[in-house]
């Protein structure tokens, strides 16, 4: 998780790169993709649980980047936070569509039950963790994804989620407490 206040655009590590992108610098475009595509893909993958949808979201985020880079004005939030906002909105929309169309095929997620078929087929710890995170209530999952995996500051994550820092802290604590219980066997020495 990144430290320090996040509203200080003077410390935005992406500001110079975004300016070069806006100026049409091909190397900067490549660099921005190399720097941000893994983060956007990881965010969407962990929010949606579906690799194909995650790729679509990541791709759509960059469409907005190409459209907005020239209009980006430093002085507000960080560019990285703005990209997270765009990606999250795309994820929210897809999650909402899933709720509205319950007959649609659900994403291919592993069963969170330790003894279930998927866990037996794959002994990988990552599969267990993915299943446990996916089974969290949506807001708790979002908090854990933003703070632990995306390493956003508590302030950035709270703003993106539209909650207070205190509420974010509560979501994080509840989510991680559940994860600790569900994944207790993985945390034991020698596991």
């Amino acid at each position, binding site marked *: 998780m*990144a430290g320090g206040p996040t509203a200080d655009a003077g410390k935005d590590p992406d500001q110079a790169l975004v300016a070069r992108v806006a100026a049409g610098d091909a190397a900067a475009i490549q660099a921005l993709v190399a720097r941000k595509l893994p983060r956007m893909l990881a965010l969407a993958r962990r929010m949606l649980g579906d690799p194909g949808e995650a790729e679509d979201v990541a791709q759509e985020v960059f469409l907005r980047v190409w459209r907005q880079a020239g209009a980006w004005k430093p002085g507000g939030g960080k560019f990285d936070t703005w990209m997270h906002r765009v990606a999250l909105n795309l994820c929210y929309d897809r999650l909402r569509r899933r709720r509205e169309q319950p007959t649609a095929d659900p994403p291919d997620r592993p069963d969170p039950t330790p003894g279930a078929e998927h866990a037996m087929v794959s002994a990988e710890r990552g599969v267990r963790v993915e299943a446990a995170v996916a089974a969290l209530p949506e807001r708790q999952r979002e908090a854990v994804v933003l703070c632990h995996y995306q390493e956003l500051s508590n*302030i950035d994550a709270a703003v993106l989620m539209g909650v207070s820092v205190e509420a974010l802290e509560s979501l994080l604590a509840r989510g991680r407490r559940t994860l*600790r219980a569900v994944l207790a066997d993985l945390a034991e020495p020698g596991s």
Partner: protein
Amino acid sequence: MDAERFETLAMAYGGDLRRWPEADRDAAEAFRARTPGAAGALLRQAQALDAVLDDWRSPAPSAALRDRVLMGPPPRARKAGSMGISPRGLGFWLSGAGFAAAVLAGVVVGVTASTAAVSDARADAVLSATLANDEDAQAAFTVGSAGARAG
């Protein structure tokens, strides 16, 4: 800082004090210095969960995805029929360097916007609202950072 607050922070932000809210770190360090046994146990417990969570790694983007990002819209949006652009326009669109240069010069922004609206109107509406409200969002960042703890 008391033990209850230290435990709450460890549970929320994990076992690495560098990842805790900046405003709480000094007090947390002081608590750890006063009660190394209790603080150490709480941190080790949180670190164990951190390590387990880190076992879930996200795959790196494929070369194909990187190429698509550099080239432009998703495949469904590149269908000439839905885009309503000429084969010549599509060819230019599919040229990565041409696309990037054109977009950044503002030449094809309108095409991009209309394509997105046709291919995924609902998502685009949500996103447009987001972009329209971006100044508000940035203002919120400023307000938030003034009174909230740094993370």
